[in-house]
């Protein structure tokens, strides 16, 4: 008994609460915002309660993960990765359809998107590879072939679902991690060139109609025939109309009139801006940046290369989600349907970010063990 209590105290002392702390702060802002965004329409009014339940689940799972030793992440990373690939294949053939795409896997009462978890599996797998290979040199094309394969296979499977946003996101995460692992500047340029060309080719041949339309809308809103340009404009109006101080909580006119579609998922940030203005946005963005830098600090303070690469990978998951979501809502890039971490409604993404925080916390806790 005495031993256990002492042990618990010990754990408590070196437990790094920063990741879950910042995440919870952002989530609380998110839930208030979600309440406001959904209160206008009767059939969504209860969603914020569901979101709180999701958050509790995410927190529980994340905490559980944080108590796993970092060696486990290393040991099971490949297994994890291949199992996840298997799930992606399963989902392609027998997944549950929702919103025109085959993304969901249903097991009894649980439904989740393997593509969400894939982000983490890919990060762990890449980290293991890079912590054992080519540690003594800069990365050129030759050294990139296998890591690129590791991220490209799941990305392709996800794009086939079709979920272009998440698929490309995995490639972007790979890119950040490769950069961290000393990608040669020359190679970097080549990758950018290849990326541009293959992007253009994919746009021409590989995209679904709605995806191409979104990109077209972004480039020229007037060319849009279906009115998705209308969403972009309404979103811009919502953000801009917030001005410096915002209209105040639950005072959004754009959201309550249902002008913004998906204002509880992808477009939460525009409601937030409308109600809390420039000031609110600065505070929220600061919280995100603090979180990113906490990950980067983690990467510099761990002793094992694997842990460091993982930390960078987790950071880039958060970073790309945040940046892309804000960018699309403000009309800086096409609407690709990525959620804003901890703010957007949705269980799968909350759990993903919870696990990310859990892994980071575990890595952080183990720093002082030796």
């Amino acid at each position, binding site marked *: 008994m005495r031993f256990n209590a002492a042990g618990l105290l010990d754990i408590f002392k070196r437990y790094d609460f920063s990741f879950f702390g910042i995440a919870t702060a952002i989530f609380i802002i998110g839930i208030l915002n979600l309440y406001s965004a959904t209160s206008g329409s009767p059939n969504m009014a209860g969603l914020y309660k569901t979101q709180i339940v999701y958050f509790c689940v995410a927190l529980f799972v994340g905490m559980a993960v944080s108590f796993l030793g970092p060696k486990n992440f290393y040991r099971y990373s490949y297994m994890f990765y291949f199992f996840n690939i298997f799930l992606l294949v399963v989902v392609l053939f027998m997944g549950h359809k929702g919103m025109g795409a085959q993304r969901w896997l249903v097991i009894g009462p649980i439904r989740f998107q393997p593509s969400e978890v894939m982000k983490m599996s890919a990060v762990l797998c890449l980290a293991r590879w890079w912590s054992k290979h080519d540690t003594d040199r800069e990365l050129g094309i030759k050294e990139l072939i296998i890591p690129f394969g590791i991220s490209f296979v799941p990305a392709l499977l996800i794009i086939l679902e079709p979920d272009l946003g998440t698929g490309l996101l995995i490639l972007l995460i790979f890119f950040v991690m490769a950069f961290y692992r000393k990608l040669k500047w020359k190679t970097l340029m080549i990758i950018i060139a290849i990326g541009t060309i293959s992007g253009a080719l994919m746009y021409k041949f590989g995209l679904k109609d709605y995806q191409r339309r979104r990109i077209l809308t972004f480039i020229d809103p007037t060319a849009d025939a279906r009115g998705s340009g209308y969403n972009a404009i309404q979103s811009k*109006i919502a953000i801009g109309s917030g001005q410096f101080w915002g209209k105040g909580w639950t005072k959004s006119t754009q959201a309550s009139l249902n002008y913004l579609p998906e204002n509880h998922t992808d477009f939460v940030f525009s409601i937030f801006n409308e109600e809390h203005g420039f000031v609110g946005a600065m505070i929220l963005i600061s919280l995100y940046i603090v979180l990113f830098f906490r990950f980067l600090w983690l990467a510099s303070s761990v002793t094992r290369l694997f842990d460091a690469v993982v930390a960078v990978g987790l950071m880039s998951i958060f970073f790309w989600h945040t940046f892309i979501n804000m960018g699309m809502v403000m009309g800086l890039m096409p609407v690709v349907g990525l959620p804003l971490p901890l703010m957007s409604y949705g269980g799968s993404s909350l759990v993903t970010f919870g696990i990310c925080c859990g892994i980071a916390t575990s890595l952080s806790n183990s720093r002082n063990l030796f």
Partner: protein
Amino acid sequence: MFGEDDAVRSHKGRLDLIGNIVVLFFLVIFARLWYLQIYSGKELYRYSIENTLRKETINAPRGMIFSRNNQLLIHNIPRFDAVIIPQYLKNKKESIKKLGMILKMTPEEINKTLKKNRGQARYRPVVIKKNISRKEVAIIETENFKMPGVMVQTFISREYSDKEIGGHLLGYISEISQAQLPKYRKRDKFNYKLGDFIGQAGLEEQMDLQLRGEDGFEFVRVDARGRVRKNIKGEDLFSEVRNKKSTPGNNLRLTVDRDLQITAYNSLEGKVGSAVAVDVNSGEVLAMVSRPSFDPTQFSRGLTSEYWKSLIENENNPLRDRTIQEHYSPGSTFKTITAIAALEEGIVKKDQVIQCGPTFKLGRRRYHDWKRGGHGPTDVYKSLKRSVDVYFYKIATQLDIDVLADYARKFGLGTKTGVLLPRETSGLIPDREWKKKRFGEEWQLGETLSCSIGQSYILTTPLQLAMAYAAIANGGTLYYPYLIKEIFKNDGEVIQKFSPKEVSKINVSKDTLDAIKKGLYQVVNERKGTAWWYRGVGIRMAGKTGTSQVKSMTSKELFSKCEEMPYRDRHHGIFVGYAPAYDPKIAVAVVVEHGCHGSSAAAPVVRDVITKYMKKYHPELHAKYAEEDKKKMKQFWLEEKARKEQLKKEQDENSEASAGSAQEDT
């Protein structure tokens, strides 16, 4: 361990770079926020408060349907609804009172309607009164500024020229139901929403995708009170938003003749039943009506509860299309098929005479002829002409049911014809395998006997009968019945043309068919033929009567007068005919439910339709035949007179002779 630590440290440079890049990226976000919220914040704020866009759907005009002679069968007529948009409703009480006065409704009624629609989004209009008059429209439009939120909405009402006539064929449109939503979304890969109109029966349903067109939309700038504002140039952020025009639906040109439809429908007056007329040499459907019917216009305007009640409480089910959705025992009209099978299989020769008494005994059961005294010596012509049951019982004993079923199927009976209409029933042609499957029992010879005269399990639809007789008439080609000649756009461009399509060439010898046709000719055109009294003038019809038993009868009931039985127990009367007999152009099948006799109930309808057809499409032929018929009838009456005189004379002679013999006796 230290080595790895070094490795981590050696990446410090890249880590710092990543940190810088993160900051740089968010500087972009920051700049954009500054631009939107501070730089253009005021203007955007004004937009959000003063102006909003309302997306209004522009309903695509639904395609029109024309008869074969280009007569418009369905019109689209604009009508008006009075609506309230709750979001914009100010001074609720007063506005509602005012609207009530205009529409002659009490405020309570209006409030009730509003309450019923409280669940939907507040910017969606709630219909208060449908189909308001032009005067009411004018008053609302002028008083509009005093009652924000009250508006007039235009909708296009679909109105059917001939009301009940052909209601089943054209079908109707009505709002998609909650239950239909997921099914139809999946089927058409189209995102239907509640309030969308879709075809729910007949051609409207079958050709829905063609007729529907594509809705457009238009963004209207409205102020905070929901009133439409004109765009002011120079300050228009919304100019980036594009509207989309609606694409009108495609039009159909049918094979159906409007006059024949009307004739057939009127001829069925007071009866429950249906009529199908087809072109013998192409399979074009010329007429297709079912009674009782319904007025499709009522559906598209929003059904009143009284009308709906009158439809569902009518025990004859007016919504049912009796031409294809109902099947009946074909009765004696099926004897034609039995005769063809027997001739082809060599069971009888066409001139072979069989003695036909009043009953046929099989085992312990007696099979009765419809005629109490029997028909005496009968060949195949007479068997059809006078519908001699015992003749068919006798040949049925040598005819295997599987063979008979095969012949029936060759003529398209017992399978869906494939006509472009929803919910067609297939009917039934039984055989050994079917019975084994259905009842787990072996086939009985007695059942073959019943089947040979079209009773027992055999079921056919009127359309199938028409197609089968058309195939007999045209020398053995079974066509698909088709209803649509072409689909064309509003500018006249033809999108799809339909042409006759053969199901098959039926492998039956010409000799057999000629014999059958001769028999069918005699049915109508010779004295003592079952339809002799309904032969008409100038049409030279051939055909076959039939009586479809509704329930099995004892021999006593069998000979009791049909008209004296309770209505629901009376036989269905069937007649299938074609004309002209030796140059066939049109085939018509008519079933009159509980009409007792094929001859008296159904044959007149066929006669009327064919007469109309001949007059309209072949007037010279009609005149020629009429002339011949007149001569023939003159001759007939002369003969009849002579026959009677002869009879009388014989009687007189007989009585004289008997008188003579009496005299001799004495």
